[in-house]
């Protein structure tokens, strides 16, 4: 059990209690949903699938960058669309309306794929979802599930992993103004999709 569980604390959640705003002394990228520093592996994306990973901060700030790290490239010219959605709050954490569509990065080669220089204000103690929508099936960096906040609890088998993010079907393209609810699924597993954020 992690101490940031909102149901446990009875109040707004904080997934990143402390963040480094700005690019000095370090350029710090925070994996959405991640609260520890545990090991990273890889995750294979599904095409036309939107991944939503929750995050929040203890201080108001600006999202200056968003990134993924591609470890196995997908087909030539294929992309991943990145953005942020608002949500209904800690009592209704499902993504709701689009906060900002940051555009796309190519996933047809390996390495860090980032969009920086962004201006996207984030309120303190407010739950958001970082979004990755894939056009193809690249493999990308993924923090370990034990590193993650259990935003969606467990399934009803009593044996499943905690679930940190949700997915929904969405044809690749600009992010919709309202989050898709086609075939939504809360997902657990050994590794979770790594969508990284940088703050100023």
């Amino acid at each position, binding site marked *: 059990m992690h*101490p940031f569980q909102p149901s446990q604390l009875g109040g*707004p959640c904080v997934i990143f209690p402390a963040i*480094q705003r700005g690019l000095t002394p370090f350029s710090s990228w925070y994996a959405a949903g991640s609260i520890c520093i545990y090991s990273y592996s890889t995750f294979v994306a599904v095409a036309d699938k939107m991944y939503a990973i929750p995050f929040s901060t203890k201080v108001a700030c600006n999202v200056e960058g968003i990134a993924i790290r591609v470890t196995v490239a997908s087909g030539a010219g294929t992309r991943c669309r990145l953005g942020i959605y608002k949500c209904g709050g800690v009592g209704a954490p499902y993504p709701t309306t689009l906060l900002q569509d940051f555009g796309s990065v190519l996933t047809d080669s390996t390495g860090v794929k980032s969009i920086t220089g962004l201006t996207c204000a984030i309120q303190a103690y407010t739950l958001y979802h970082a979004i990755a929508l894939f056009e193809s099936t690249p493999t990308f960096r993924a923090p370990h599930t034990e590193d993650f906040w259990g935003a969606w609890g467990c399934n009803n088998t009593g044996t499943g992993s905690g679930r940190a993010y949700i997915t929904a079907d969405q044809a690749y393209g600009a992010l919709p103004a309202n989050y898709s609810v086609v075939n939504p699924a809360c997902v657990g597993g050994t590794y979770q999709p790594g969508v990284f954020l940088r703050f100023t």
Partner: protein
Amino acid sequence: MRVPSAQANGGTGMYPWIDRGASPTSSWYRTSSVGTGANIATYTCVADTIYASYFSVPVICTLTELGVHVVNGVALSSARLGVYRTGGWGSPYPTTLLLDAGTVPTTVGAGPQFVTGLTLRLQQDVLYASVFLTQSTPGFSCGSSLTTWNTWGSDNTLAMGRSCVYHAQAWGALPTTFPSAAPTAVNAGTGPSPTMYTRYG
């Protein structure tokens, strides 16, 4: 259960509550720790280096004890312990010295070593940096990456999380200002991250 305001704010980022005092349980809290994972690991220090890890408390209280756990000692060596302010939740780098708690031995067989009788008053929901300055290269029992807070995120490679920072510092009294030139964050990977132990009253 009615929870204090800091807890209602989602905890202080590390300890959602604390046990003050030594009864009914004697509770030690590892800095930068967010879980109860059993993966305690040994972190081998560099000599003449000051390491900083983080803590905060959900209620106003007093830091009464501060320590490290020596598992691989070095003859005739010590560590100096203390606490620094930080720039806050949006700028966690250590800033000015709050407490130089003195030294503890880090010799072979030293085991848990604590400075007791401290009276450092701590404010609720404020981010502090606990530090130790090494004279030699002891190994400390520390939190693993599995339970250590992701204070500094990943570097530009998105390769691994970082919890603590360290900087070269000549052995002696703790500097009044944490050294700022070319600091380094510990890239923990799956290994240990420098942490300390605290107790409150």
